[in-house]
């Protein structure tokens, strides 16, 4: 079946709402408007305003209400229009959703799913272009997902809803229009393991979310240069599937981490540190990182593109790693 990332997400929502009457979608403009990114378009007509619930511009209020509804036995899917606005709900996400189970000594779990768009690349300027999923992955108590493929867009939501604990799903804005083939019977997918999307033995390219397409493109071009790359789609940023990373590095002895987040104190830093901790003696070259430059994401296209990871920068990093050491 030909579909898009957006349609796959919508199918996942429809499926979840149909399968479990406790599931409802809540957020800004999810109903009448059809979703800021048109993910929920048509669902209001299908499921009604109680379950496709438009909210005021009150991120902390409606995210907190989602947490409360989860405590009360519902299975809310809360859509925050973009990760940038989720900063207004940090108190609820970090002080409540992530802590309640532990603070209550195991009495109150919070089965909420919070979806949000993330990332840059669309000339939206600094306040609409953050990539903060790695930052959320710092928080114990949360599970952080970054679906990058059609199969994951279709399959991660239901699995996330089965999780007894809070799950944040980051959908990169550049992916919604990605089109491709999806199995007609595509269904829920696991959310515990990273995926090796391309196998090679010269280097491991590690990424997730919005940078996956460019990393796959870089891998193709590197192949033409005789550099055969493993490409790992992390899929889940917390808890990290370190096994898949280390298994690959043990074969390739080289790694490049590609992350649209900033470099300092980032998920790429965490991955590089873990490789150093767990696979240091497998390495033949320093771990390379390709991240966004440490500037607020600018508006002008040439400036923005210069700030973000690119195929060229990934290839250059890979060449450096392959050229280094043994």
């Amino acid at each position, binding site marked *: 079946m030909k579909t898009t990332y957006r349609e796959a997400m919508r199918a996942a929502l429809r499926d979840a709402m149909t399968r479990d009457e406790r599931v409802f979608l809540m957020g800004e403009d999810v109903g009448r408007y059809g979703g800021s990114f048109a993910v929920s378009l048509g669902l209001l007509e299908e499921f009604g305003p109680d379950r496709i619930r438009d909210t005021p511009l009150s991120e902390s209020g409606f995210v*907190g209400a989602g947490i409360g509804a989860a405590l009360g036995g519902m299975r809310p899917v809360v859509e925050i229009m973009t990760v940038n606005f989720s900063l207004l709900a940090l108190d609820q996400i970090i002080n409540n959703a992530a802590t309640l189970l*532990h603070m209550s000594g*195991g009495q109150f779990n919070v089965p909420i799913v919070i979806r949000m768009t993330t990332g840059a690349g669309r000339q939206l300027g600094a306040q609409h272009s953050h990539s903060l999923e790695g930052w959320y992955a710092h928080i114990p108590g949360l599970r952080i997902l970054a679906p990058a493929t059609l199969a994951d867009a279709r399959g991660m939501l239901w699995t996330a809803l089965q999780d007894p604990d809070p799950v944040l799903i980051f959908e990169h804005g550049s992916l919604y229009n990605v089109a491709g083939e999806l199995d007609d019977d595509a269904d829920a997918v696991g959310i515990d393991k990273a995926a090796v999307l391309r196998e090679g033995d010269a280097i491991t390219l590690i990424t997730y979310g919005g940078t996956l397409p460019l990393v796959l493109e870089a891998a193709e071009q590197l192949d033409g240069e005789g550099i055969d790359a493993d490409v790992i789609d992390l899929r889940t940023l917390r808890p990290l599937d370190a096994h898949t990373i280390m298994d690959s590095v043990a074969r390739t002895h080289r790694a490049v981490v590609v992350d649209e987040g900033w470099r300092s104190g980032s998920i790429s830093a965490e991955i590089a540190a873990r490789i150093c901790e767990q696979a240091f003696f497998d390495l033949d070259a320093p771990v390379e990182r390709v991240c966004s430059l440490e500037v607020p994401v600018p508006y002008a296209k040439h400036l923005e593109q210069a700030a973000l990871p690119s195929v060229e920068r990934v290839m250059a990093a890979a060449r450096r790693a392959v050229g280094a050491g043994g």
Partner: protein
Amino acid sequence: MTTLRSQGIPDADHAVHLLRQMLRVRRLEEKCIELYSAARIRGFLHVYIGEEAVAAGVMEALEPEDAVVATYREHGHALLRGVSAGAILAEMYGHAEGCCRGRGGSMHLFDAATRFYGGNAIVAGGLPLAVGLALADRMAGRQRVTACFFGEGAVAEGEFHESMNLAALWQLPVLFCCENNLYAMGTALGRSESQTDIALKAAGYEIPAWAVDGMDVLAVEEAARRAVDAVRSGGGPHFLELRTYRFRAHSMFDPELYREKSEVARWMERDPISLLQSAMQAAAQLPDKDWAALQADVDAEISTAVGFAENGTPEPVSELSRFVYSDRPDDGSAGGGGPEEQGTTAGKGGAAG
């Protein structure tokens, strides 16, 4: 101000019950101060002395299936909701017998059995949770009420206003109980709010709201019953501004530089416990021997609770990473991040409802 039903107390047995409830909180809090001073318990400690009539009156109006969301000054709310004094004190001791197995402490008491949802230590952070609990009830067609306690300091927070609006917009069954003790830590209401009539703020969201003498437990109970009945019968959120006063410092670290001793003394003349006690004694509804017996009962309860806490066992460090995530079948696939990746499998979770 003199009401207590204008000194005619219709149901003496019930009034004695309220007196007992307030005294249980008072004695528990006094014991907490003592234990804190003896360094048996640590962290932040915020006691409710002076404000007992608020929790005592409101809790009377709630049913077991209702939910309660409270603040970090919540020992009394937990106790009156039905959490044992022993489990509360054991929590402050960091013991496995504590109501949160030592992970919450004084500011984070939780109890699933009584639907007591904390113990929230971010001012106004509990309000959205209350809205959500009520939303769940509403969507599931349950006739339950969520009572949400917060101080007047919370009304300066955005989460207060967002929650008022959501609850009113969706007509959710929440009873908002604003414990107006006049000071947000050390900041007097008039120094922090352009509009100090708090009930008026709620009214601005089309929420029925009224102010109540929070030192008069009968007045609190009466108002709470009226509000809870309205909420339960589908009348949407209601709001009580309970005018009260904190007799003790904000916390154990507060030198109280911001208020006059004479002001505290003036309020202590309306101590909610002595107010009811003396009214009952004046009406010959509380014989000395009954009052003495009641006090002895409460002292015994608290003393037993201290013994329970003292004899508890520290929550084992080996359990530290439990409850970061819920228990799930160990299929070996989650986590796997190496020696520091802990806490991906844990004890039992389970949302109520």
